[in-house]
């Protein structure tokens, strides 16, 4: 983990020697140049990457258990589509009415807020129907359908919107960890810690859910409130990450499976912390690759996460039995 973080700090369009990084952290002499890169760019980015990795993995783990489906993750339920719709309305809707947001700070806050609202809206809708739907697979189908409808609306908006607004939106969908200022990182940190705390509180019920819904109910699990708590934790985690960094796919599905394979223990007391750590490590790794060491350009983080995640997902589909 430490090595990965160090690597992430060292590598980039400009390579900073390890010695400089050590002296930066130990308060030794560093050049102004190194400070200019580390403080506003590298350090915020690596923190954001770690937070997102933790959030998406813990979120995916809970959804997989709740829906008894190895391929469930925050994006399948339409939570990211909801966030996408929020951003689409903000970016493309406003420009369609001739409103332009001049300050970039207002734009980034607006994007984040609208994404969060979109994600939250979808969760509220899921909560509203979850008590009416008899089982989790119907909820899963509902989520997928919702995602499709939202995607259709977004496509329609893309078709109608100006090219500059479209560009802003497409850039957001590619996902990125950079460009967050310290106050935004604090907001992200607090939201994710709240979500994580709730997730830890969910561990007991998640373990009970492994026994099957009918038996869990007979154990005294209040399924409605458990479902609600898991969905709220999920929105806090995935919604916040999507709001600030864009929709990042595949990590939520893949990391819990890697944790299962490595630790060979289905107990969430083991699985949740290990998925959180692995998620952080893999995300930092993905981000390191995305920076194309030594090159000026950056690959969208979604491209890298797909390259890492898809082989694992295919392996799951082809090989393993989940239950």
């Amino acid at each position, binding site marked *: 983990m430490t090595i990965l973080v160090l690597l992430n700090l060292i590598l980039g369009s400009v390579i900073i020697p390890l010695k400089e990084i050590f002296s930066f952290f130990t308060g030794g002499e560093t050049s102004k140049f190194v400070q200019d890169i580390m403080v506003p760019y590298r350090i915020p980015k690596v923190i954001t990457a770690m937070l997102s990795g933790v959030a998406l993995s813990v979120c995916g783990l809970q959804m997989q258990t709740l829906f008894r489906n190895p391929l469930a993750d925050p994006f399948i339920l339409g939570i990211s589509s909801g966030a996408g719709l929020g951003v689409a309305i903000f970016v493309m809707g406003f420009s369609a009415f001739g409103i332009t947001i001049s300050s970039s700070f207002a734009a980034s806050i607006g994007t984040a807020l609208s994404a969060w609202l979109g994600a939250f809206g979808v969760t509220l809708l899921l909560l509203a129907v979850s008590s009416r739907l008899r089982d989790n697979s119907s909820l899963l189908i509902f989520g997928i359908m919702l995602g499709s409808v939202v995607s259709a609306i977004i496509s329609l908006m893309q078709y109608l919107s100006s090219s500059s607004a479209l560009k802003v939106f497409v850039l957001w969908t590619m996902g990125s960890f950079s460009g967050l200022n310290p106050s935004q990182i604090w907001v992200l940190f607090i939201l994710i810690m709240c979500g994580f705390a709730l997730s830890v509180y969910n561990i007991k019920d998640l*373990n009970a859910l492994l*026994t099957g819904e009918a*038996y869990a109910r007979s154990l*005294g*699990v209040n399924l409605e409130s458990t479902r609600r708590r898991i969905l709220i934790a999920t929105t806090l985690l995935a919604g916040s990450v999507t709001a600030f960094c864009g929709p990042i796919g595949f990590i939520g599905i893949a990391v819990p499976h890697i944790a*299962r394979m490595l630790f060979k*223990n289905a107990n969430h007391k083991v699985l949740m912390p290990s998925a959180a750590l692995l998620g952080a490590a893999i995300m930092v790794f993905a981000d390191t690759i995305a920076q194309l060491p030594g090159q000026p350009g950056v690959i969208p983080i979604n491209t890298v996460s797909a390259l890492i995640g898809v082989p694992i997902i295919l392996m799951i589909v082809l090989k*393993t039995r989940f*239950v």
Partner: protein
Amino acid sequence: MIDSTNIKAVLRLENLSLGYDRIIYRDINGSAGYGQMVAVVGANGMGKSTLLRSVAGILKYHAGKIEIEGKSVEDYSSRDLSLKISYVPSQSPRTKNLSLFDMVSAGCYSRSNWLGVIGKEDNEFVRSAIKMVGLEQFTERDSSLLSDGEFQRAAIARSLVQNSTIMLLDEPTAFLDIANRITTVKLLKDIALRENKTIIFSTHDLLQAIKLCDKIWVMGHNNFLEGDPEELIEKGAFDTMFKDSSLRFDPKLFTFL
């Protein structure tokens, strides 16, 4: 209502009507006493699972009463109900890499702390339950690798650890071979005797039910009957089980003719 045994009833069903959207079975009057072993028999689709799910509080019933120790099932909180009744579905989902110990200790749900950590007493309780169902050599192993018969016994151990007054089991032997069927039902009988638990299970194995159970609930084609096995045979209760009225239960040959 027939209650030949003078054991105090722990569970009472009165004029109960069952079903999902519409009523599928009416006028059930029955009871079960402490420490009794009760078999629920009836043709496929008659509503055995529906009855068990309703008693377990998982499914709402249409009319009538289900009372546990004099209080309606609907009036229990989910936690209090879990102390009275445990429910084992005919097939429980298997989870890969979940140790047998962790699987069985899930039964301690209502007694464990907020993180699901169980106390020392419960730890021993889990081990003794695993021993009782004869799986102690597998305690730390992956529960998903158990055979069907072993897995069903593990599910019974989990329900035992829940320590409820009544254990409901929906066709516990449905997916088992003959040897495992006998072991499983004998295990249930053993639990009823040793732990003084009321065990209610649905089954298609009428002969085993007649031999081992204190009481049988017959979900007949026309009406619901209950009683001890001999009494029911005398009354020809098993003849009402199937739609085809030419099927008669022969008490001497112990089979349907």
